[in-house]
């Protein structure tokens, strides 16, 4: 995909100013990208701007909003969304994987990897990471999804930490073929596993997954 003629504007929604300090500089350092500014919540960004082509969204905001809901509001606003995570529970990652976000990136990933992910997301490309693949691969709801054996193999290899090149090498196929598989897996996942409708549902899924302590009767 071609790089846009005018620089793509990237905004950050994160309630940590310090993260924006580091990420903002990283965005400005990427050719063709322009850091538009930071807001603490999605509501604030939608109300006050700045306009952005891509929003780098923190997975776990402190305003009690839900990741998938934030993605939906931002995509409806017309922006692409790349989610960054501090390594939270996979059920949050799964929730956002069911949404239209372009991908999920660890904040602790190497800087150049984050920079590249932002640049590619600004071009509208999906970002496939180990975090995404592991969360989807381990989703019990997805175990019976209509995937081919090869697609399952691709997902498992991604989830184990291999990149697209290594997966292609391992399966003796081209990288494009691997990308095709991944595109279909994402689509099936988004279609089959809808985002949690409510925070309660999300919470229940977390409990079922064993990532949250089961509430006990008082």
């Amino acid at each position: 995909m071609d790089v846009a003629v005018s620089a793509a504007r990237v905004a950050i929604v994160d309630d940590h100013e310090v993260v924006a300090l580091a990420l903002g500089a990283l965005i400005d350092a990427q050719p063709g990208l322009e850091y538009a500014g930071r807001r603490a919540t999605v509501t604030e960004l939608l109300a006050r701007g700045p306009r952005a082509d891509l929003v780098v969204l923190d997975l776990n905001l402190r305003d009690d909003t839900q990741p998938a809901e934030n993605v939906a509001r931002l995509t409806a606003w017309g922006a692409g969304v790349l989610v960054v995570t501090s390594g939270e529970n996979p059920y949050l990652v799964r929730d956002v994987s069911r949404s239209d976000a372009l991908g999920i990136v660890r904040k602790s990933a190497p800087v150049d990897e984050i920079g590249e992910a932002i640049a590619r997301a600004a071009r509208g490309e999906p970002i496939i990471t180990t975090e995404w693949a592991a969360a989807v691969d381990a989703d019990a709801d997805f175990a019976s999804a209509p995937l081919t054996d090869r697609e399952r193999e691709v997902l498992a290899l991604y989830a184990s930490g291999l990149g697209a090149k290594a997966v292609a090498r391992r399966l003796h196929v081209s990288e494009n073929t691997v990308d095709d598989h991944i595109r279909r897996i994402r689509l099936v996942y988004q279609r089959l596993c809808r985002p949690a409708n409510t925070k309660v549902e999300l919470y229940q899924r977390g409990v079922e997954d064993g990532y949250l302590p089961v509430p006990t009767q008082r």
Partner: protein
Amino acid sequence: MSARAPSTELRVARLLTIAGGVVTLVIIVSRRAVVPDPRALPWSYTAPVLAGLLLAVLAAARAPWAGREEVRLLNRLAVVGHLAPLLAVAAGSAAGALPRDVTRLPWTLSTIALPVTGAALGWGTTGSCAVLAVAVGTVRLGRLGTGQHDLTSTANDVQAAATSVVLIVLVAALLAAARDHDRAVAHAFTAAERTATERAVRAAHRRTQALVHDEVLATLFLAAHGAPALRDQIAAKAARCRRLIREMTATPGSVPVPLSDLVERLRHSAEEVGAELLIPAGLPRLGLPAEAATALAGAARQALINSRDHAGDGARRRLALRAGTDGVRIVVSDDGVGFDPHRVGPDRMGVSVSILGRMSSIEGGDADVSSGSGGTRVVLAWSRPEAESVAAMRPAGHLGTGLPVILATVALTQMVLCVLAGDWVSYIGLAAILVGLVVMGWRRLEPPTPARTAVVLLVSVGASVLPLLRTPHGYGEAWYLTGAAFVLAGLATRGRPLTALAGTVLATAVGGACVVLRPHPEAAATLVRPATTAAIASLYTLAIQRMQRSTTAVRGRELASLRERAWARTRDEELRRRSRFLDDVIGRTLDLLAAGAELDADLRGDCVALEGRLRDLYRGGRLARQPLVDAAMAARRRGVDVVFLDDAPGHHLAEDTLDAIAHWMRGHMDRVGSGRFTGRILPPGRDALASAVTSEESTLFRG
């Protein structure tokens, strides 16, 4: 647990011991009035008897401070004090060795229900049955020796035996109910402590997680990746992290927040969104736990903001507060666009869930969100934790086969006395007693209905006029008066003690009037004994009811305080533990950053490694264990991007297996010099347990 109130069983045992002593005292004091006998017994004979009986009074005086074992011992002594003179008299009588002027058994010794009850408390049901048998035999033997074969002494002994049987059953049921209650309370206490502990661990976890996620990871991230020009900001952030980690152990709940502080915060929030504030004058001086105050203020603010954002233009909103000494209630309402709580967009549901979540995470917190076409109403409540779960003691549930025993004993003994008396008035008396027993209804042991109670009252009080129909020659011929008193006693123990007491007063007054109209010998005994029987049963039931209420209240307070203490203790322990952990892991690095140290490659490497180390606690799950932790720190310092994923969190893996995985994974990680290393526990059902993937190789652990 320290300073817990005495067990219910001990309280019941003490109460019964005291009651025994009081009744004994009444008998000692009133013996002359009850049996006005011109042929007074010699003091050499009555003094040891009185001394023996006094043991029961002394036991009662000591009982309020005695433990369970001591109460048992006191009752045994009282039983011996009663039985010893009785046995002496019987033996003397059998051997024909009684003094000449002793013509009868002292009446006070024939009140065998007292030693029988004492035996039930001192040795249990079997012991009390044995004492009953011995006492009945001895009394009869004593009568034989003193030549008492009249109806009065027989009626006295039969009624005493009947009373004893009833008491054996009731005492056993009471003690069983008390033990059951103690078990239920112990269970409630254990459950409360466990729940409070779990909640405290969660609260500590939430707080630590928030601190690590919101402050520490962000600071380490900035230090690892931020420009050198940001050094001052990084130093400030690091100093803040250091302070927050230290302050984790300061307990926010230890200092109560005055209600006025909460009101100020609510006023501020209401002004912020233009809501009307309704706060009644003269609020109580109330201190809330800091966490409750924070939750209430936060939830109220959230509800107000939610209303401002969603209720639509022109909606009016108000915040009303009510406070009592034991709780606070806040209602945030508006008349704007409501929503169906079952069909809402995630944004509004998210807010209501977070309001509910906030309130449910504190002890005694509750919240309710309702909405419709008339607007939205959010109710937030906090009440001082009360022990609603302490169930009352239920003696009736422990009667079992004792109930038919009681009914059969009372009915049969009264029939026997009726036949022995043999006169037509006795048959009317028996009919009244049986009607009373039947009408009370025994299928369900709840208080009889008002109509049934009225009938029972009518027949038992009505029996008092029978002496007018045929003047009795003594206590024996008026046996039915004590029988009617049994019916009143039954009414009292079935939960109508006040009615029974009123009936007793009425029956005694009617009986007294009859005695005035038709005087007869032993009139005092025919009045005092039934009155005492019914009055004791009534007062006794009242005492038990009162004890039940006070026990429930005491247990409630204890439970609430236990919960609070267990919660606070565990939370403090957990926070200290987590604070120490954070201090150990990142304290030194934060100090360096806070001091404005130069962000050289080493320090940045440390920050990357430590950030990963903390992150592993969440997503790494069971892989956050030694020797992987140290190996991962080293690898991250070398520049390796280490990712740990535990994707089988609900799936049990033995500790040995996890250790084996950790050692195996470490071997692979140690060989990586750069690039990425991903260690993963695979989801269940795969053909391997774990995988280790580097940029060059990928291997599986199959166990």
